[in-house]
């Protein structure tokens, strides 16, 4: 079992420069996450929740405050922090096992150990038999599972999930939430999930961090003291969900709008 890290965020602020003007994105965010904890972050679009993840993963820098992983200030990206993006971001020219193996490119392991790790993690996300498939042959849910395997294959100390199921249909999403919970319980690593789906946040998180926009800051942190596996129909579950939702009553929630699929030339060609 990998080592799970403590993540300490202290007084974190971040601004973007837009046409010479300073636009605050995050304002004095402080959050302490215990090893092996599952923290959900919910908020409307523009509340800086994705920026927060991008800062923790190291894709963005130039911030004020501290981001400490096990007491050490994070610098750039590192194999000890993994991320799953909203889009699967698999490399279309690589097969499933090559995509997962890519995560180990710079890992300090022998070839045989790498092969084993890839096989184990493909099994972990339940994709045995698809090792040699290309991304174009996979469904959205399967692709996202490959992305999870790729992010976990390095055994990171903390896994960040940036709306990983946002683009999936409701049934697949519910199924993958269960899967993610199983993986989290099995691997015992620290996970931070950013989402705008309150039910997802409550279903998965030990705590739900509610953020509010302009500038992005923490409004409230809600504990979810429910045993797992959780029942979405349960009264206590519904009560916590209502509680979190009430924080959004004066901010209409931005619904996810599915982008229209790209049309193929064939679709508009006449058959005669």
């Amino acid at each position: 079992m990998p080592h799970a890290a403590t993540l300490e965020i202290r007084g974190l602020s971040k601004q973007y420069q837009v046409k010479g003007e300073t636009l605050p994105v995050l304002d004095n965010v402080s959050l302490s996450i215990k090893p092996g904890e599952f923290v959900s972050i919910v908020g409307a679009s523009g509340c800086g929740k994705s920026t927060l993840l991008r800062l923790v993963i190291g894709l963005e820098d130039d911030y004020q405050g501290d981001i400490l992983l096990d007491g050490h200030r994070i610098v750039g990206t590192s194999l000890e922090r993994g991320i799953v993006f909203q889009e699967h971001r698999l490399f279309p020219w690589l097969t499933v096992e090559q995509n997962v193996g890519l995560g180990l490119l710079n890992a300090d392991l022998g070839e045989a150990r790498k092969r084993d790790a890839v096989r184990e993690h493909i099994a972990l996300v339940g994709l045995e038999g698809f090792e040699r498939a290309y991304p174009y042959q996979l469904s959205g849910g399967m692709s996202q599972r490959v992305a999870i395997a790729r992010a976990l294959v390095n055994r990171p100390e903390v896994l960040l999930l940036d709306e990983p199921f946002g683009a999936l249909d409701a049934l697949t999403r519910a199924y993958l939430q269960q899967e993610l919970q199983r993986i989290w319980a099995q691997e015992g690593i620290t996970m931070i999930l950013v989402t705008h789906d309150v039910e997802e946040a409550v279903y998965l998180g030990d705590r739900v961090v509610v953020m509010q926009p302009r500038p992005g800051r923490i409004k409230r942190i809600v504990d979810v003291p429910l045993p797992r596996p959780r029942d979405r129909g349960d009264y206590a579950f519904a009560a916590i969900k209502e509680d979190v939702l009430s924080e959004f009553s004066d901010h209409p929630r931005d619904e996810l709008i599915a982008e229209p699929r790209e049309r193929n030339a064939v679709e508009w060609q006449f058959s005669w």
Partner: protein
Amino acid sequence: MTSRQQTAGRWPHWLHPAAVPKPLRGWVIPVLLLTLWWATFRFGWTSSQLFVPLSKVIDTGVRMAGSGELAHALGASLYRMVLGFVIGTAVGLAVGTALGVSRLLENLIGPTFHTLKQVSLFAWIPLISLWFGLGDLAKIAFLSLAAFFPVVLNTFEGIRSVPRAHLEVARVFAFNPWQVFARVVWPAALPSIFTGVYLALIYAWLATLGAEYLLTSGSGIGNLLVDGREHFWMDQVLLGVLVVGAVGFVLNWSASQLERRLLAWRGHSTAQF
């Protein structure tokens, strides 16, 4: 929908264009043309000296193939084409990659390149013939130039349009610059690069003919055509046209086969015929 129903109503079922099975539809027009050609002479619709029966073209083909004349001309043309294509593509790949990878080089070379590419390829012929004469060297230089431009442009485009999302994945996994290039940039650019190389192949073959018309010394398929025209040997002209078309077809086919293998991960293909 209505127009289709009307058409179907007026046409006898077996004459409807859709009656031809899909894989054979591409052959309808060639077969009709060949039949028309054959019928023109079979039923004596023309006695013009500017047109010859299909059978005479075939006879000429057999005769020239037997004497080695055809193979010699085709060999000379293909030799120049392959050489020009390889040189132009290799230099094009190097320049395109350099322009794509380095912003400094793009700023330095880009404007000159984009101006030069506007100059029609055939405008270079006088200069090339002055510098390199009328022989193989001049022709190969011209062909290299023809292959060079599409490869540079598409390689540059491909490298420049590598999705940011993929580059971020590379950063998350701590790739070094070489790994980023070899594992992300190059494969992501490959479809575009392939399009460039594919265009280079077509341009090189077109330019081979162009070079042989305009730099008329030595042998080649183009010279065969020029000869035929000057002597009113219509059979030789038509034979030349058929050979040129056949070579183009084979090049195209090979390219699409190669693409199917190299870029199987896309599940579709650009090179088609």
